[in-house]
């Protein structure tokens, strides 16, 4: 790769990491959310409190965990509690500021599907399912969602609503009594979508460098709303890329030894 070049996944990870305010308590899943969260912790947000659903509170991994059960998490955590406790006292208890989710499908109200493609009782693709996503979406103060943008993922109608964003839009989330305010940003490999303050419909508000509105619209399965004044996401800095690549290399080296 030429100097200063970066992949679209790197752009997505860096853009997601920047959304993490220093000091926030962050409920995080394995994969891109975990990479972004740790990138944030290693750059502008050193006091971020990482919470994994296995019960590790304040984990400070030096390499990315292979799964939520990784010893790297429990050994570096401030506290390790049971699964019933992490979900009841901590997540449902309203103590987590930010949740960070991936998804297989998303709709225009930022509801997500991670359960099945096709009919639930006779699925075309059986996906892993909710895990903790449903409660993360419901109970964190706010939620970030990250996934690659294309027509199969950004759909008019979800095959299954696993975790609620804004449900039918407007005030339908509040009416259901969910305490968290819902997804505030959807970060993709093409840009950033944010909910309209009133209708809660996802609106393209930022384009990653080199991406066009047409590309994003074409990758979206509904007529995508576009903000009148579009931002351009700042490209990853050399420092961001260097920390992220170091983290990924360190991780690959550590895991290569585990055969």
């Amino acid at each position, binding site marked *: 790769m030429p100097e200063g070049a970066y992949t679209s996944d790197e752009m997505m990870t860096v853009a997601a990491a920047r959304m993490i305010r220093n000091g926030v308590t962050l409920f995080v899943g394995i994969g891109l959310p975990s990479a972004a969260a740790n990138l944030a912790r290693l750059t502008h947000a050193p006091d971020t409190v990482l919470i994994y659903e296995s019960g590790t509170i304040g984990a400070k991994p030096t390499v990315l965990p*292979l799964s939520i059960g990784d010893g790297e998490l*429990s050994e570096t955590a401030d506290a390790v509690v049971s699964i019933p406790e992490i979900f009841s006292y901590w997540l449902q208890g309203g103590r987590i500021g930010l949740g960070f989710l991936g998804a297989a499908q998303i709709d225009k109200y930022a509801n997500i599907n991670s359960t099945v493609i096709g009919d639930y009782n006779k*699925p075309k693709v059986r996906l892993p399912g909710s895990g903790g996503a449903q409660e993360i979406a419901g109970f964190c103060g706010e939620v970030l969602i990250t996934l690659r943008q294309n027509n199969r993922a950004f759909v008019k109608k979800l095959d299954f609503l696993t975790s609620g964003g804004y449900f039918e839009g407007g005030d339908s989330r509040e009416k259901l009594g969910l305490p968290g305010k819902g997804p505030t940003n959807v970060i993709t490999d093409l840009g950033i979508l944010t909910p309209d303050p009133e209708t809660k419909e996802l609106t393209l508000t930022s384009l990653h460098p080199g991406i066009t509105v047409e590309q994003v619209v074409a990758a979206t399965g509904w007529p995508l709303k576009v903000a009148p004044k579009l931002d351009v996401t700042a490209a990853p800095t050399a420092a961001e890329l260097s920390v992220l690549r170091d983290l990924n290399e360190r991780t690959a080296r550590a895991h290569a030894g585990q055969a």
Partner: protein
Amino acid sequence: MTPDLIYDQLIGAGCVKKLVFSWGGNPGVGSLHRLRDAVENGWPQPIEIEEHAHAGMAAAYSAGASNLPFGMLRGYVGTDLVKYNQRIKFIDCPFTGAKLAAIPAHRPDVTVVHAQKADRKGNVLMWGVVGVQKEAVLAAKRAIVTVEEIVDDLHSPPNSVVLPSWVLSAVCEVKGGAFPSYAQGYYQRDNAFYKAWDFIARDRATFQTWIDRHVLGTKDFAEYKRSLEGATSHA
């Protein structure tokens, strides 16, 4: 809660009629292909699934351990799981009128968990990511614990997770028994096996060859482990 590779093996071998779960994947790798084949195609036999989210599973195990008929939580509102799982109901708070989800208690016939140490009396010490293991043990009619080692004295730190022998049906020393997963303080997860499993389980014939050779063709856990070590890239 999170069926791992061993579940995939049981499902592919036709040993599973029903799966109660909240996340079914190969963690950090992808799908459990045998689970997918059973759900998507009914191979080798149809599988009944009862699906929850993690918090619901945790509440149901806690309820089981507590001898309560159901576990209670906020959540599930507005989602599709409630349409397909009749065991998720809603109750009203008698004080505030708030709507709360209710899940029947899990009371497994048998729970099997792996821990780090037992003493000679059969008291078990576990540490690290303990998950829902204590609840799953206490909710079960019978509980079996395998441990990395049996020691004279557990030297349990204060408030650590200890299961007294009198709540357990059997304690067995099985070194490496968490394979291919972690046993904190003993070994990391065998990540190469998790990756290899994605290849092995993706195809029915490959899976069948694997299970015939390594599981059905070996007489105990030690021989199974040796047989895997002898195989190139676990396949």
